[in-house]
C-alpha cells in the first residue's frame, strides 16, 4: 500500500502538470475500482458515470491539492455524487423496455463466470451489491476503493463508528451468504445446489 501510495503521489504530481503518462497511471490504477464501486451502487451505465467522474476530475485537477490518497478519496466522492445524479435522472425518465440484448449479455457473463474465472469480479460485485445500501457502500469503499474508515465516513457523511458498524454487519452478512459459503471448499453445511 505504501508503494502504491508513492506511485499515486508521483502520478498525481505529473498529471497535474499535464503529463499524460502520469494521468494514465492514475486512470489505470483507479478506473477498475471506480467501475466496481459504481456497479455496487447499481449504476445502469457505470462506464458513462465513470467517464463523467473523470471529466470533472480532469477539469478541476489544477485546483486540487493533496496527496495521492486524498486524490483517491476525492475521485470516489465525485463518483458517488455522479452516481446519485444518474440515479435521479433515471428516476425522472420514463421506464424503457428491457431489450433482448440484456439477456444475451447476462448469459455470456454466466458462461464467463463458470468457465474461466471461478469467482469473477462481476459476480463478486453482484454479491456485494446484494447488501443493504449503507453496508454495500461501506464495504465497497473499504475493500474496493481501499479507503480507511475515516475517509469512508467523510464520503458517506457518517460517523466513523457508524461506518464500522455497517462494515461489520456487511461482512457478516456476506460471510453467511450462501453464494459466498459455496466458495468455501468442503461446504460445511447442507446447501441446495439446484
Amino acid at each position, binding site marked *: *500500500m505504501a508503494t502504491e501510495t508513492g506511485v499515486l503521489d508521483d502520478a498525481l504530481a505529473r*498529471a497535474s502538470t*499535464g*503529463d*499524460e503518462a502520469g*494521468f*494514465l497511471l492514475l*486512470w*489505470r490504477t483507479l*478506473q*477498475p*475500482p471506480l*467501475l466496481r464501486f459504481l456497479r455496487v451502487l447499481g449504476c445502469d451505465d457505470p*462506464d458513462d458515470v*465513470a*467517464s*463523467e467522474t*473523470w*471529466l470533472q476530475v*480532469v*477539469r478541476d*485537477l*489544477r485546483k486540487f491539492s493533496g496527496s495521492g490518497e486524498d486524490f483517491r478519496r476525492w475521485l470516489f466522492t465525485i463518483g458517488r455524487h455522479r452516481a446519485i445524479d444518474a440515479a435521479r435522472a433515471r428516476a425522472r425518465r420514463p421506464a424503457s423496455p428491457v431489450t433482448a440484448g440484456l439477456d444475451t449479455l447476462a448469459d455470456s457473463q*454466466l*458462461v*464467463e463466470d*463458470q*468457465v*474461466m474465472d*471461478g*469467482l*469473477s*469480479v*462481476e459476480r*463478486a*460485485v453482484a*454479491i*456485494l451489491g446484494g447488501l443493504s445500501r449503507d453496508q454495500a457502500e461501506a*464495504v465497497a469503499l*473499504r*475493500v*474496493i476503493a*481501499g*479507503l480507511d474508515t475515516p475517509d469512508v465516513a467523510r464520503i458517506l457523511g457518517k460517523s466513523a463508528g457508524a461506518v464500522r458498524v455497517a462494515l*461489520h454487519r456487511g*461482512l*457478516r452478512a*456476506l*460471510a453467511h451468504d450462501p453464494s*459466498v459459503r*459455496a*466458495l*468455501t*471448499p*468442503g*461446504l460445511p453445511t*447442507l446447501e*441446495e*445446489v*439446484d
Partner: protein
Amino acid sequence: MTSELPGNLRPGDFGAGEPGLEQLLTTLASGPAPGELAGEQAALAMFRANVPPPAPAPGGTRPMRQLRGQRLRSRRLGGRWLRGVRLGVISAAALAGGFTAAAYAAVLPAPVQHAAYQAFHAIGVPDSHPAKAAAGHRGAPSGTSPTGRPGSSTPAGRAHPKPSASGRAIASAAPKPSSTAKPKPSTSAGAPTGPVALSVQASSGQILAGGTVSLTGQVTAGGRPEGGAVVRLMEHVAGQPGWQDAQRATASAQGSVTFTVPSLTSNARFRLAAGGAHSATVIVTVVPGLSVNLAEGPRGAGDDLAVSTVYARRGDVVVLQTFRGGRWVSVRDRLLGASGETRFVLKASKWQGDQLRVVLLATRRHARAVSSTVTVPPPG
C-alpha cells in the same frame, strides 16, 4: 485465514475462518478485469482535450501536440463526452493498428513484444516467450492438418454426459454453449485488399473432458475470402496465464480454415488471428467424467457410495443429493482426493428406496457434472 486482507481488514472484523469471504474480498480488490481498462484511449483523449500539456523547455519549439490539444479542447464535452470518447477509441485504435498488428504477429523485438503482451494480452497479443505447452490438453499438434483423434480416455459409464447425434455433449444444468463468434474487423490498415476479418465456430460449446473440439474459421479481406492467409489459433486454457499461440494453418481458397484440438481436459477460450486482426472468442467447457457405484456393506456397517471422476482435481467438491419433494436436495459433500475419488457411507435403513445422485461442482477448469441416479436398496 491470512492477516492481510483487502481494505486492511482483519479476520476479527467479520469472524474467524471464512475462506469464502476472503476469496470474495480478494476478488473485489483484484487487478483489472477484462474490459475495465477498455476506455483508456478515450480517457486519454479527454485528458488531452482538457489539460494543457507540460510547458515546453525554454527556447524549445511549441509541441505539435499542444496545438492539437488546443484544437481539440472543447468546453462542450460536458457530461455526454462518452459518445465522442467512443469515437476517440476507434480513432486511437486505428492509429495503434500498426503496432497492434505487429504485436499480434509477434514480430516485435522481444522486450517490446513482451511490453505489448503486458498491455494487450487480454485481446490476444502473444508474449515474446515461446509458446508454452498447454497444460490444459495434451498432444495438441502445431501443424495445419486436423490429425487429432477423439480422446480415447473418456471413461465408459452411464454417469457421463452423452453426446447428442450432432456431437454436442449434453448437460442439462451446464452453462449454455457459446460456440460461435462473429467476425471482428481488423484495425490494420496494411492489408492489401481491405480490412481483414475473422470468424470462428467451435464444433461444440461443451465436450466431455479429454475429448476433441474442432474450430472452423473464415478469413476475409475487404469482404472477400482471403485464401492462403496464415491463420493462428490462439488459446487461453483455464488456469494458464494469458493467450498462447497454439496452432497455425493456411486458409483454403475459400478462406476457410479448420483446427482440431484433441484431448482437451480444461475449459478454454479460443480465437483466430491473422493479419493483425482477430476473431471474437469462443469458449469450450469440459465436463469431467463422473461415476458412482453403490456397494452394499456388511450388516450394520452401511452402504458405500463410491465416487470416481476423470479430469477433475483434488479438492474439487462433490455433493450428494437426494430427490425429495420433487426436487434434488443436497445432503452431504466431500472433497475429491488425489486420485479423483471419494465416498459416502450411507445407512441403508435411513436411505432405502431413496434416489441419490452426485454433482461435481463447476470450477474454473471444468463445468458441472452430474452422475446417474442410484436407488438405495433395502437393507439385506
